[in-house]
């Protein structure tokens, strides 16, 4: 029967604390956690509780159990606002949410939480040693949200059908790109969004009924110019120039009438 087993099964609190701390320092987080788990509920308000909660929260974080660590670290931050470890713990709490953030095509509730936490952290501790990392993580998450919004808008463009919903689909794609461009004006996907918006307008105009064709061709030119402004060098240049030439040619017909 190892020392750990003896202490684990014993009722006494003090040895659990001592051994837990020792295991924690040695890097045996799993067993340290098991011991801490037993004594954490009864320790509230007692001296040493802060240290215990610090180690406990850290154990979860180091064991990559981010669901628990996000909660435990947040609790620490609320409970011990004057702790000297507060900066480290706020950062790790935020980073736990960062780790929970799923791939862009799923619900981004944890991403939004993480961004908020990281932002709060950066506002509170602008001189922190973790500032750079926090800022990098926040940017990465923000990029994920942008990608998500862009991908959703691009989905409408992708699914334009030729059936009875023809016009609806074009307008939906244009509206979706507009929403994206409004919500993320400085996004790195801006140029792509502008191009596909033009592409949608181009397809709508070319396939339009005669009655509305002129107006739609002019819209396409408008969107082309918007894209052109933001695209110095673009993978779409060749395609875009081909389309706009076609649009101009079509518009010519109306001017000649």
């Amino acid at each position, binding site marked *: 029967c190892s020392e750990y087993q003896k202490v684990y099964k014993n009722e006494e609190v003090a040895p659990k604390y001592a051994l837990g701390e020792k295991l924690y320092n040695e890097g045996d987080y799993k067993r340290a956690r098991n011991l801490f788990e037993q004594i954490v509920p009864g320790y509230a308000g007692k001296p040493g509780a802060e240290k215990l909660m610090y180690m406990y929260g850290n154990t979860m974080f180091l064991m990559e159990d981010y669901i628990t660590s996000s909660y435990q670290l947040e609790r620490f931050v609320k409970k011990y606002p004057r702790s000297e470890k507060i900066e480290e713990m706020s950062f790790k709490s935020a980073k736990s949410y960062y780790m929970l953030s799923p791939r862009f095509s*799923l619900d981004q509730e944890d991403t939004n939480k993480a961004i908020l936490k990281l932002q709060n952290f950066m506002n509170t501790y602008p001189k922190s040693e973790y500032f750079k990392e926090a800022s990098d993580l926040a940017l990465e998450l923000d990029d994920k949200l942008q990608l998500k919004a862009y991908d959703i808008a691009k989905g409408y463009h992708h699914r334009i059908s030729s059936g*009875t919903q023809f016009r609806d689909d074009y*307008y939906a794609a244009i509206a979706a790109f507009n929403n994206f461009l409004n919500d993320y004006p400085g996004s790195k996907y801006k140029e792509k969004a502008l191009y596909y918006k033009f592409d949608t307008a181009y397809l709508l105009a070319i396939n339009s009924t005669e009655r509305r064709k002129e107006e739609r061709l002019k819209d396409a030119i408008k969107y082309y110019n918007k894209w052109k402004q933001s695209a110095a060098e673009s993978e779409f240049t060749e395609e875009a120039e081909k389309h706009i030439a076609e649009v101009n040619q079509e518009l010519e017909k109306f001017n000649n009438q």
Partner: protein
Amino acid sequence: QEGNYTPGSKYIIEDITVSGNASFNKQTIVTYSGLRKGLSLVVPGEKTSNAIKKLWSSNLFSNVNIYVTKVDGNAIYLDIEVTELPTLNEVKITGIKKGKHDDIIKENNLKKGTRVTENLLTTTKNYLENKYAKEGYLKSKVYLNPVTTKDSTGKELVNLVVNIDRGDKVKIKNINFSGNESFASSKLKGAMKNTKQRNPIRIFKRSKFIEKDYQEDLKKIEAKYKESGFRDIKVTSSDPTYNEDETISLNIDIKEGKKYYIGDINFTGNTVYPDKFLRQKLGLYKGDIYNGVLLEKQIADASDPDADDLTNLYQNNGYLFSNIVPVEVGVRNDTIDFEIRISEGKLTHFKNISVVGNDKTNDHVIYRELRTKPGQVYSKQKIVRSLRELGQLGFFDAEQLSPNIKNPNPNEGTVDVEYSVVEKGSSQVELQGGFGGGGFIGTLGLSFNNFSIRNIFNKEAYKPLPMGDGQRLSLRAQASRFFQTYSFSFSEPWLGGRRPQQFSVSLSQTSQFRFDPVARDVDRDQRFLITGVTVGLARRLQVPDDYFTLSTAVSFQHYNLKNYQTGIFQNISNGFSNNLAFTVGLSRNSLSINPIFPTAGSKFGVTGKFSIPYSLFNGVDYADLERQREIAVEDNNRNALARIDQEKYKWLEFYKIKFDGDWYNTLYKKLVLRSNMQFGFLGAYNNDRGIIPFERFFVGGDGLGAFSLDGREAVGLRGYPNQSLSSTDGGTIFNKFSLELRHPITMNPSASIFALAFMEGGNSYNTFSDYNPFDIYRSAGAGIRIFMPAFGLLGIDFGYGFDTLPGQPKRNGWETHFILGQQF
């Protein structure tokens, strides 16, 4: 705060003591107070009063004081004196049944160890008195008697005696009306739904007096008058009077006022719909009795958000910010003129469409199903349709799907919709082992309904499986010493992601071996192999409407026999047969919302399965072949028979037409009627060649897939044994009608349960000349279904067959059917 200190000067806490504490640790109290050793503070000051406030707010003490015990230079010694509130020890309840004691303790939180405050006692008393008054015990009295004792450690404890005297239920002896001229008192009593006077004949409704119900019933009387034009009706009631026999009398006074009629109705502000249309929709005309209740209902029915009223006419068709108010513009004698003022507001468009809660399913799988798109005109119908589509996916808990209308902006005329989804398990595992057919049979079946095939080699995606692209993948293997079946199928609902066209492919391989009775072992030299491939494409259509799907499939089966005699091949024991067929189906599915328990909509489809008409061009004279066969039968020439049958079944030639229709109607609240009709016909292009012994219909029993080597179709008909309503070779034509009443028991996503009662009838026929749709076997019965995401659908039905099966002496009677697998 006392002591030898100078008010207003700064001190540093040297030590804190605590007195009066019995159950709390000293350190805990100090920590909780926020004071600590070494803290500098002004006495008296904010920090001490905050400490007192904090301790007070804990609701654990009846008294908190802080004293200065000693001052030494600028060092100060403090003492926190607390008086702990006594805790509850034992609760004794008298006056009501023992079974209810626990509920009372729970509802009032009278647990052992709860701190006894004055507040706790008062709220408990009030709660209980109210509770019994609501049940009709108007004269209930509750007495609380707390007795304080001390335990061995000196802690104060309270034993609480709760004495409940409910008294008798107060019954209503009479209800008296005064002032009613237009309606008889009995009519008015009838309008009161939950307040009834005592009547020995009426046994279902109580005659208890319940204040809340009574007030509602008074409103009902008012409504009754208002419906008949009495706009100014006043219904008042004095307090109930007690009679000598502990009953009460209710006195209701009515001031009827005048009876009014409708005068002119004018609409203002309407640009979208013309007056005439709106007037028709309103359904009230000049000269009608003024029915205030109906008028309100026709404009905006508060009791039904989906009502067919004017407000919804506007709101569901894009005018989300519209507002309709009826205004009385003039009263001429007993006639009232109206103006219906309509403010249409801006035509509303959807702005952002978003989805939350999808923690497994990828965005594109969800967004592509949504009928609401950015920039579209707002339509409630489209939101409802979107919910249906999401429910039908089967990835989300259909009962928890909800649309949240967000950020309505009347100035821009935009609104956002956020669909909130909750993922549910959508993979199923089947693992079976058992003895049967002379040996061990093992089955392993896996079916993943929300698979992601592109991530199949991506290690990261295995959490625990690559999920979220809405694809379906299933694998099944069944093996024993005598047979093995392997099957694989995959389907992608949106091939290419651009439009809803489902691509599916399935492969299967079956091998069967004979048992050698001499060696008592399997004889692998006598074998029967079947290999099958099916590739299908199904497209959702736009016309006639977008509930339609057109599906096409090509299927191929190869049968191979070696030293193996089986009934369907008649005389071939060494040979083969091929079944290549094209299937075309047109179906329409508008079931909503929950695929497990649809409450509305219908699902029907016609499918045709056709082989190539080989006999048109292969130059074989099948009439001659049939003659040769007759001769061979007469001569009992087995070799010739085998050769002829091999020629006959080399490529199977047939066509098969099927119809299957399901209709669901909600009859009352959650009671749903399912009506089903099925029909099938198997025919031959060439009568000389005859109808093939494959692909036949077997009617009767639970309708589960059986062991289908020969493309047979099992059609369920409860109340009769499996496949008992067809000849041994199977029918070539069948029909079936069924009515089923269903009621949900629980729609919990972890286990949905519903009960059903059914009536059905059907039969199969060997040839078209035998066919008689009214010559059917009838049955009725009841059953239950349980759907658990991990296991699929399970169920049991008890059916009674009313008709006599051929060869039976009497009607078939009761049968029990176990249902396994998804059947919806």
